[in-house]
């Protein structure tokens, strides 16, 4: 099996085929859900969903489609590197892992990636249809199981 020396090598190979989406995540944190300790003091977290990330109904029971809200991902090495450096700065005592998925192969039905209209290379994982928050959580857990992880991304960036 070919070994990839850097994330660039991997991205160069994969981009010929489809979009790769990457999310730097501090060690011991979950790639798609939040623990209370990972959130700010006043953040509302429901079943691991950080409420302010998503377009939710007023009663917080439903998540609705929105092209510019959802979980942040990077599709380019350079955007990833910026966000990675920021995560590193804010989590000085923890290694930062890089979780990644292939758009077409790995995302559950009801999800799609939408590019940030203000920043090429930055994407939002959004929903394509209104769904229960509990359904969103199930799908986010499923997505996390399909993600591949590069532990301690400082070795490849």
């Amino acid at each position: 099996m070919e070994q990839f020396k850097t994330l660039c090598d991997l991205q160069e190979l994969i981009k010929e085929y489809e979009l790769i989406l990457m999310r730097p995540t501090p060690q011991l944190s979950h790639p798609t859900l939040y623990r209370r300790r990972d959130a700010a003091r006043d953040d509302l977290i429901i079943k691991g969903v950080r409420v302010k990330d998503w377009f939710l109904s007023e009663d917080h029971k439903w998540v609705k489609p929105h092209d510019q809200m959802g979980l942040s991902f990077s599709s380019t090495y350079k955007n990833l590197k910026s966000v990675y450096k920021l995560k590193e700065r804010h989590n000085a005592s923890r290694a930062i892992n890089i979780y990644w998925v292939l758009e077409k192969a790995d995302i559950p039905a009801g999800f799609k990636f939408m590019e940030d209209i203000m920043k090429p290379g930055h994407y939002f994982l959004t929903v394509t249809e209104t769904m229960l928050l509990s359904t969103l959580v199930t799908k986010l857990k499923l997505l996390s199981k399909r993600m591949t992880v590069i532990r301690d991304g400082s070795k490849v960036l």
Partner: protein
Amino acid sequence: MILFRHPEERDIAFYYTGKLADHKAAAIFANEVVIDETAALHISEFFWTMVDCSINCTKEKKYPWPDGAEFWNEKILTSLSGSLERLGFIDIWDDVVDKQ
């Protein structure tokens, strides 16, 4: 012109220009100067200085915005780098990132 997605990002950026006494960054964020290579470099470097300052504020429990410094710094990062990319200065942003 620097475009911020959320009004809070602009408020935070201005708050730290004041806290760091960075009048040049304030003028850039206020769109009082045309952004050239020098200005692009200045705000790219200002961003990381602001990040360090906001982390210290958080440690001292003095960060003024309840959503937290990491959340807002990521939003500001996206707005600043997106603006610099639109203006043709993303290489300057990336060079500064490489030095962090």
